[in-house]
């Protein structure tokens, strides 16, 4: 009896959260900048995933600003994490005969039908940030976004530098804070890191513990506290995002150790608070995952509209930052 009631509660809660979450979020206006005079401005229909994180908000702002700057007529819609919202937004763009459709897919699969409609209407489609799986590669022109696997590789490369700089000798015992289980960034960042580790550091590097911190500060803090108990000899932390690293730093300090010295920390993303922690010497290096892909997207849209051939995957411009660059880079961090 208890179990059933509890289960019901859980089920209703989950269903309702999913179903009603849309009502809670504020509605984005779907109007963009007005078209510039003279030659007819390009009309771009853009469907965003939602506004689930600071990274995503920065991404949205970047797209809106870049469109304004380029003088495009941007039709923006927020899918609030739901594929059906995104599909209906794309159908609307097709009906409105926009020049180019760009969207950041909520999920990987289930896009064939709507993308075929776009193709039939001869409207080119550009993906941003995330990719899709389709049966027919001609359904989208290009993807503008980050290479998560490469971010993992870069994290391993920068860890090499960090180790040399710190003059580290002996075994490298790594604790890994993973992102949300099943999320593409979490899977691919772990994969890229492991690839370099297995290929070049098989003998001296070892991931001794690895657990998900759900990309959150609270998660990173709690998991790291447990890691420090079960594996007190950990000397390197690899966090899949800055927020988890920031949480972990607090646990490391509570354990009486010095983050950045006793435990070397490498993380991915490059949010502002991450840079603040790095400038304080608590994070050793950050691999950037750049949400500010607006300007690159606008370039691609122009090329696609003009029929210029573009690469299948246009990777976002990203940098790697060591501690000594943190202070200089800090003021330019927008998110």
């Amino acid at each position, binding site marked *: *009896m*208890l*179990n059933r*009631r*509890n289960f019901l*509660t*859980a089920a*209703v*809660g989950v269903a*309702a*959260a999913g179903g*009603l*979450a849309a*009502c*809670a*979020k*504020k509605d984005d206006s779907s109007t963009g900048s007005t078209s510039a005079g003279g030659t007819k401005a390009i009309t771009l229909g853009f469907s965003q995933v939602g*506004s*689930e*994180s*600071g990274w*995503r*908000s920065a991404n949205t702002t970047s797209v809106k600003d870049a469109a304004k700057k380029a003088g495009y007529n941007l039709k923006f819609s927020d899918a609030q994490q739901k594929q059906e919202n995104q599909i209906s937004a794309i159908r609307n763009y097709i009906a409105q005969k926009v020049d180019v459709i760009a969207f950041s897919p909520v999920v990987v699969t289930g896009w064939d039908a709507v993308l075929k409609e776009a193709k039939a209407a001869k409207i080119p489609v550009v993906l941003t940030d995330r990719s899709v799986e389709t049966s027919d590669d001609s359904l989208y022109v290009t993807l503008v976004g980050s290479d998560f696997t490469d971010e993992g590789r870069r994290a391993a490369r920068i860890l090499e530098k960090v180790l040399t700089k710190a003059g580290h000798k002996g075994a490298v015992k790594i604790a890994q804070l*993973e992102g949300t*289980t*099943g999320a593409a960034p979490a899977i691919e960042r772990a994969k890229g890191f492991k690839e370099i580790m297995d290929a070049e550091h098989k003998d001296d590097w070892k991931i001794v*513990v*690895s*657990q*998900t911190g*759900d990309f*959150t*500060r*609270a*998660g990173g*803090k*709690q*998991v790291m*506290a*447990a*890691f420090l*108990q*079960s594996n007190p000899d950990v000397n390197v932390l690899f966090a899949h995002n800055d*927020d988890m690293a*920031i*949480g972990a730093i*607090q646990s490391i*300090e*509570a*354990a*009486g150790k010095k983050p950045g010295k006793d435990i070397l920390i490498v993380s991915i993303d490059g949010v502002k*608070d991450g840079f*603040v922690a790095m400038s304080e010497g608590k994070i050793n290096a950050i691999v950037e995952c750049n949400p500010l892909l607006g300007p690159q997207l606008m370039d691609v849209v122009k090329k696609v509209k003009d029929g210029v051939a573009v690469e299948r995957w246009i990777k976002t411009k990203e940098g790697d930052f060591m501690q000594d660059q943190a202070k200089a880079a800090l003021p330019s961090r927008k998110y």
Partner: protein
Amino acid sequence: MTTPSTTSSRWRALTRHHLFWPVAVLVLLLLVNVPFTPDFFSIKMADGHLYGSLVSIVLFGSPLILVAVGMTLVIATGGIDLSVGAVVAITGALACSYISDQSDQSALSGVLLAMGLGLLAAVVCGLWNGFLVARMGIQPIIATLIIMVAGRGVAQLITDGQIITINSSPYKLIGGGYWLTLPFSIFVVAAVVAVTVVLTRRTALGLLVEAVGGNAEASRLVGIRSRRIKIMVYMFCALCAGIAGLMISSNTSAADGNNAGLWIELDAILAVVIGGTSLLGGRFSVGGTVIGALVIQTLTTTIYTIGVPTQTNLVFKAAVVIAVCLMQSPKFRAKVFGARFGAKGSTTPAAAPADTAATEAAPKMEVS
């Protein structure tokens, strides 16, 4: 087998105490850690405060204990409060955004005002829940669902969808600071639990709450203002959630409207159930709930320390929870251990089914 019957009857009395199974599970879970972390129980000084796994469990478990204690009273009236997670997020968001606007973030007056503001918002949420349930007669699950969903939106609105980081030493004390070498949150939890126990067990309030949960209409007819009691418990539950919200945001010195307190309502309900409070209302055990919350936190820590692969976290957690719930069920115990448990110490085998029937009718008698 050779046990004298006196020991056996004492054992039987012990196993029938309402806190026996929750405590047994907690001890078992703690012991599971020892082979993986040999110094699991060791507590040492680090950086001027006590440090160790047990300290972490209490520190990270504090918000859950608070939320679960509030939830216990709501469930005792036959209700349920799904909005606590959202209230956690709103409180943290309000307090942190207020503090971040101050020129001196460490000023005590500003921090107290921010906390008061957050808690006020929490209590207003509770008042709204209580109003819908008691005055409008809306099912508690639906009434509180409104704030569960909308509240998180409000929190996101307050934080603008961003994580607000603050740097305020007085605020950090509540959820992440130490006092007398112990985490300060332990004192907050102890105070809230003590006040709750005194109010419900040393005054008639507890009885009234149970009466309303047992039969709201009958209690109204005997002169209990059942609606008022209901509104009060929802407000109390929200207040507890609010304090938990301050703690969670203080623990990381940041307000995260998207993730703070996410799904904590489900953990809280689970803690209440593990603690032996009936979801049907009418009976509750605050002590059991505290143990239940510690069981859940210990389980989480155990998953991290024994190295369960990430993908199997939830399955592992579910398996343990199922086992705990089954162990708590007198019917299940009678079926599985029936022969041994029932026959031992008692000459009549018929005692076992009779026992079971009795405990089933009144699942968890309350004494704490």
